[in-house]
């Protein structure tokens, strides 16, 4: 059963290339580059890469951040296994 084959590719090890199908320009009057969103809008469309403290659950930590930032809704991307 022992398989010494090459390791499978993790999602972060996949290399992708961008292929162009057509050319066009974008109008600066509409939208923003993601990093140029302003203030509250930048927050509402944002993600925090948090170093989770041991002890509280992910849910509790998300609730703290909700209170600190005074937001309506804050979620988290999957629990660290209990």
């Amino acid at each position, binding site marked *: *059963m*022992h*398989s*010494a084959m090459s*390791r*499978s*590719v*993790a*999602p*972060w090890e*996949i290399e*992708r*290339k*961008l*292929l*162009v*199908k*057509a*050319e*066009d*320009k*974008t*109008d600066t009057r*509409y*939208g923003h*580059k*993601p990093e140029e*969103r302003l*203030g509250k809008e*930048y*927050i*509402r*469309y*944002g*993600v*925090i*890469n*948090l*170093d*989770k*403290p*041991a002890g509280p659950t*992910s849910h509790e*930590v998300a609730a*703290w*951040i909700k209170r*600190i*930032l005074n*937001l*309506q*809704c*804050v*979620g*988290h*991307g*999957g*629990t*660290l*296994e*209990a």
Partner: protein
Amino acid sequence: MTGVLPVTLEESRKIVQALLYSGKEYVCVMKLHGNATENRVNEVLEEFEDTIYQRPPLRASVKRQLRTRKIYYIDFLEMDGRNVLFKVGCEGGTYIRKLCYDIGEVLGCGAHMQELRRTRAGPLVENGDIVTLHDVAYWFTEWQQQKNDAILRKFIQPMERALALVSKIYIRDSAVDAICHGANLTAPGILSLETGINSGSMVAILSLKGEAVALAKAVASTEEILNMEHGVVAKTERVLMPRGTYPKCWKSGGT
């Protein structure tokens, strides 16, 4: 501290599904219940570098049926007596506590998970822009006082960062608003796309400014899409951009 936990703020909650699919990496201390040689431990760890079967533990929040999870890699780091330190890259939803238990069974001496730190959740890594709760509270207060948005960028990333591992399709300004209203993406709206897309793959639809417009499910491969002149290319599943951000360039069916 137990490592990378992606926290989604209001609108960015919609990209959680993309994060769940993009894999995790952990550093783990496993405690052996008996003696084993470093060689033997290495051998057994390598055996688990494969698709494994796991039944979720009793206290899990999902249905307890046997399921498969991919272990992309397990790298032995060091061993001190009965403590084994290793790094594991795996599919989301892999139970590392179970993995340690199973490794112990194969070794014969038994083992349990002693300590765990997540070093990656999809594109988010610990040695990048990781912040503590304290940082969040501190920088937020600073921002409220100084009103300088550069401070926000110290602890919050645009949600597009969390989509870095999803295949991307860039579209014309004129195609954006229809997608925001839930329309499927059709071939004429596409400007560029990444390799590796297959029918059924999750894709991120982006504007030319790099803003996430929607998450969608591709119905054709990269190669097929490149040669398509009309027809649906991806079915819109989750709209991320508010309607009206870009002008409406499509004709309504008329009422």
